[in-house]
């Protein structure tokens, strides 16, 4: 067991290190001088040289790589080229937008998608099933930026109930802040809900063919109870896997949705720092996302064990 954990941990760090090397190399060969981007078309050469020194760009690449890695380990992510504040502070400021947004989206998607999928499976080949499948098809086909714009048109421009975008900050109060996350969370959740509905439905249909389900029914357990206790519970494994995989899709979706709604989240930060050639922020963020994805996969495997005791014993 310890040997297994140790191997897992080693591969965890090896993955992160190789990611770091690739990220650094890719950004290193990317043309464009961040100092020139900051100072613009008419910049004096002396000013450029001074800024390059200030940003540490005048040092050799190998040295910069090791100081970056050293910083990552000690939690010092460096100073943003554009904002000139610590990257940790920037990421912190953006986390308080993206984390609630992503959580709301996942909760909404699960709250809509899983029951709908279960409903469809329970009503297999009947009207309810068909309706859910139509919803799922539409949810997958509609691009979420378009759905976001539609929500803005209806609820912000038309009805005037919610802001069209932006984020007043949590200091402005819980309700105003939450209000500005509502529409983007719905826009993000829709395709996720559609996928979850489909996965839940097919996983449940598959489980319904299992012997233990037939046994349970034969023993006289009610159909409702069988569906909830035996079918849904066992079908949750593929659903949780998909939820985990969806996480990276959610991050990508957040980049688009955060731009549509002008939300100052991590996704928008990625977009902005690429446009502004704030390479240090790009490096740190890509690293952070890689770390998160690797970590989530790890967490999913732990969750399997919780859901299905058989898997716990096997390892």
């Amino acid at each position: 067991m310890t040997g297994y954990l140790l191997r897992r941990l080693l591969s965890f760090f090896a993955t992160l290190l190789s990611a770091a090397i690739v990220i650094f190399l890719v950004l290193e060969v990317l043309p464009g001088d961040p100092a020139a981007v900051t100072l613009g078309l008419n910049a004096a050469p002396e000013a450029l040289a001074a800024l390059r020194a200030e940003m540490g760009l005048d040092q050799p690449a190998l040295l910069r790589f090791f100081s970056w890695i050293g910083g990552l380990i000690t939690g010092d992510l460096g100073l943003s080229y554009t904002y000139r504040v610590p990257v940790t502070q920037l990421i912190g400021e953006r986390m308080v937008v993206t984390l609630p947004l992503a959580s709301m989206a996942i909760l909404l998607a699960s709250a809509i998608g899983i029951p709908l999928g279960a409903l469809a499976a329970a009503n297999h080949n009947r009207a309810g099933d068909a309706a859910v499948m139509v919803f799922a098809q539409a949810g997958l086909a509609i691009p979420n930026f378009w759905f976001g714009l539609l929500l803005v048109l209806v609820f912000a421009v038309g009805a005037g109930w919610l802001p069209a975008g932006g984020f007043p900050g949590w200091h402005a109060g819980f309700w105003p802040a939450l209000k500005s996350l509502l529409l983007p969370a719905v826009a993000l959740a829709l395709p996720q809900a559609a996928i979850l509905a489909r996965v839940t439905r097919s996983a449940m249909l598959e489980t319904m063919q299992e012997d233990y389900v037939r046994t349970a029914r034969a023993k006289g357990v009610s159909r409702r109870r069988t569906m909830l206790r035996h079918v849904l519970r066992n079908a949750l494994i593929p659903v949780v896997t998909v939820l985990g995989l969806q996480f990276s899709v959610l991050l990508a979706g957040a980049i688009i949705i955060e731009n549509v709604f002008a939300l100052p989240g991590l996704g928008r930060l990625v977009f902005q720092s690429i446009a502004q050639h704030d390479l240090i922020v790009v490096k740190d963020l890509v690293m952070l996302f890689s770390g998160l994805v690797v970590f989530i996969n790890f967490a999913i495997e732990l969750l399997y064990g919780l859901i299905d005791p058989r898997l716990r014993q096997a390892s």
Partner: protein
Amino acid sequence: MTTRRDLLAGAGLTALAIQLPLSAFAQAKDSVTIGMTLEPPTLDPTSGAAQAIREVVLQNIFEGLVAMDRTGKLVPALAESWTLAADNLTYTFKLRPNARFHDGTPFSSRDVKFSFERAVGPDSTNAQRWIFTPIESIEAPDPVRLIIKLKQPTANFVYGLSWGDAIVVSSATAANNKTNPIGTGPFKFARWNRGDRLELARNDEYWGAKPALAKAVFRFISDPQAQVAALRAGDIDVFTNLSAPEAIPQLKADPKLKVTLGKTEGETILAINNAKAPFSDVRVRQAISHVLDRKTIALGIYGFDLDYIGSHFSPLHPAYVDLTGTYPVDLAKAKSLLAAAGFPKGFECTLRLPPPAYARRGGEIVAALLAQIGITAKIEPLEFPQWLERVFKARDFDLTIISHTEPLDIANYARDDYYFQYRNPEFKALIEKIDRTVDEAERNKLYGDAQRMLARDAVNGFLFILPKITVTKADLDGMWTDWPLPLTPLAEVRWR
């Protein structure tokens, strides 16, 4: 049956209903929310070229000795007045005696001396050193007097002092201006939620007239659709330069909004690599100029007419000469010029485009226009940092489209190594002469000669001036609608 309680509740509700819009109205009276496309990276205009920095802080938080007004005229700011001695070298500035920094420190001539010396110091990242390099010495004999001696007569010296790069900062707080700016202006920095909004509050100790606004919020919305949605939903009161020209008819139809199309200093050009064959042949460049149908290009990008240019000069400047008729659209003439240069069938080249919509959309149209005379321009879209590196710095390009937004930047054509590499000793001599000509009328005449020289040599394809699309609520007054300098001064903004 109506009970007493129902009646009371009804009365309460009515009172609330009356109060709500009233209080909302009273609140809207002295605060404004302004939409901008780009967020300033920092708040110190002396350490970065980003236009967004100046748009937010210049003339609001920070001030220079002089300022530019909405018509492009120089007006006094921290300097009440100034005189130039007969030697054409010595400027004496009389400063405001009652100006204070936002932290309470009184403003004095020593702050100006500190600011200008800091700008050319060894660690300075001030992008516009040219403003300060003519300075021989700065003296601060008393708090309200400042004497600046120049090395040689410099015509645009005072003009440069109105730029964001020449703001006056306090030695005690200058180092923190990037994130916590302390200036002398009518507004104070209040708070900044990076990525979303920045708030300013009225400076009640301001030396000049008190602004009508108590609070201003700048909101940063880069997506064009989101900009339009925010305007239509009433989330913002004004957008300084909308990125969605296609939404103009829709916004104009809204009686609550007011749309203004203004001029800027953004000369948009089809830049040509003058050092590279076949573009080094003036006939090739003239042929290109003869096919650039500006109206078609403008309609294709924006959907409406713009202010066109025939040389590198904005109609906002008094020295502007209309040279748009120099090369009328004439395909036969263009073809014969190309044939004379040895390319009767045309040639192939590349057109490298930076990301702004005017460049990407304009590039497609320009390529189609050039194809009419056999010039096949292969389009290569680039990200801005790559554009800066390859086109601007390495000068590795044939053609590109870009807007030069800095005011009065015609002197760039006198720089041999500037990316379009126009190398003309005659033009250089002319710019040097302009630099030394202190008399304004005489100088403007020379600027006219310079414009004609660039047009004659067809150095670049001169297209149009970037429009400034301002959308405001109908009852908001005082926003700048032209951009002689890209700024959003709020001192004169008020609700009607």
